[in-house]
């Protein structure tokens, strides 16, 4: 089992754009990386025999609001054989939220990313089937954004109750 610093070295090696930053204020400790490095880092963490993060437990979208003008995606990785846990965070600009999909590496990411697309409008590039999952297909807007205003009527049904 590797320590957090050893994992950080592995992450650092596969980062081409910007060096990773450590986020101490999260449990488990999180690594912040550039969005262009994500696919490369994820692949090396999954396939490196010393880390072997074989399970993607949770993908979370976060909207920091229009003032901060950023969105975030947090990935919670688990390694079953090494009993290791790691969080990876990627910050995206709010005006153009696009990130590479991880559904080729972990099939879990498929539905999680669809849900984030549904709730936050973050686009996952190269996703096999990016449709809304919880809301109806003709729903307007992304409900969990901090500045979300629901439409007044949905198919002539008053939304405000």
């Amino acid at each position, binding site marked *: 089992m590797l320590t957090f610093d050893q994992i950080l070295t592995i992450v650092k090696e596969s980062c081409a754009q910007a060096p990773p930053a450590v986020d101490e*204020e999260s449990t488990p400790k999180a690594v912040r990386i550039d969005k262009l490095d994500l696919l490369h880092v994820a692949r090396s963490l999954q396939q490196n025999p010393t880390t072997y993060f074989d*399970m993607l*437990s*949770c993908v979370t979208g976060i909207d920091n609001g229009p003032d901060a003008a950023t969105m975030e995606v947090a990935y919670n990785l688990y390694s079953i054989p090494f009993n290791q846990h790691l969080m990876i965070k990627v910050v995206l600009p709010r005006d153009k939220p696009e990130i590479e999909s991880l559904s080729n590496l972990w099939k879990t990411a498929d539905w999680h990313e669809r849900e984030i697309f549904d*709730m936050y409008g973050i686009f996952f590039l190269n996703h096999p089937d990016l*449709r809304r999952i919880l809301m109806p297909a003709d*729903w307007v807007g992304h409900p*969990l954004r901090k500045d979300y205003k629901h439409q007044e009527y949905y198919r002539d049904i008053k939304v405000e109750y």
Partner: protein
Amino acid sequence: MSNDRVQYKSKPGNLNLSVPNKFDVSNLRSEEMIVNLGPQHPSTHGVLRLEVLMDGEIVKEVVPHIGYLHRCFEKHAENLPYNQVIPFVDRLDYVASMNNEHAYAMGVERMLGISDQMPKRVEYVRVLVAELNRIASHFIAIGTYGMDIGAFTPFFWLMRDREHILRLLEWASGARLLYNYIWIGGLFYDLPVGFEDRCREFVHYIRPKLLELETLLIENKIFVERTANVGVLPLDLAINCGVTGPVLRGSGLRYDLRKVDGYSVYPEIDFDVPIGEGKMGEVGDCWDRTHVRVLEIHESLKIIEQCLDQLTGTHKRTRDFDPQAFIPKKIRPKAQDLYVRAEIPKGELGFFFRADGKSDIPFRCKCRSCSFVNLSVLPEIAKGILVADLIAIIGSIDVVMGEVDR
């Protein structure tokens, strides 16, 4: 009736706005057809709609359509103080509310940094009620599964036995299903006087019933024929799809978060983690998944007995014990992100919290529900099977739509 009282005006164009199907009739090959299964169908365990592309009776492709029971859990959670979210947490997996509350309360306590000050009695009561509820949830899973594939009697027998658990939990909390019993930093109330004795009687009552269940359903020839070698989920696919709980253990991996993470007082309790061994067919088939649930009930009974020993021995009821003593007056965690996970009957329930440190309302509360992830494996294992086996697979995954749609 005046026009403004009509709630929904049907327009022919409405159906085309939200395209209900992924597949289109125009690009089907000959002999293929699209069959709609659900959302109002008893064998889909709630409001799950499956779009099934079939060639005769062979299933070519399954597309689950979910969201019919979406109740905006995350939106609600981000507008309410931490303690007021608990009733909403109950309604995620509504047949195992205690386990949900346990996971949620544990997460918030970790954020506040009070999780290691909890009195042992509180923790043992939490584990006791959570395991009781785990048994109740597995009873529903096995009973309805039997009913899905044609065995009617086990359902009634298991519902009868589940009623004993619900009455015990109603006695403790006042509600049959949605308890709001485990609070952040404590419990709603201590156990009622005499609960431990009744609970012990229940354990003695239920053990022979489980043997009956095994002979009635699990080893029944028709049941075995319908479930063995059906819907085999290979282990590597299961892990890659993020499947957890009895579905993962049925595929042969001894992975239980109660052992792996060792949260609450589970490290002090002796129990085994049953896995699927392929007794009737291949490892990871529907029979294995169901059998794992039956074995888990036995393990839960062991845990309950040990909790009762502790609750009547070392940590027994005292006059001055206050289960609400450690409930914080103001729940305002410092700014942080936290991911917490716990084993509920269906698998790994995770919560991702972001606290901003300025308010007692979570900035972000994401629920990683196990039924949602377990359901996503269905299209993978339902290719090239018969449509009757599709029903068997849905039941063996044991989804609760309240948790899938949140």
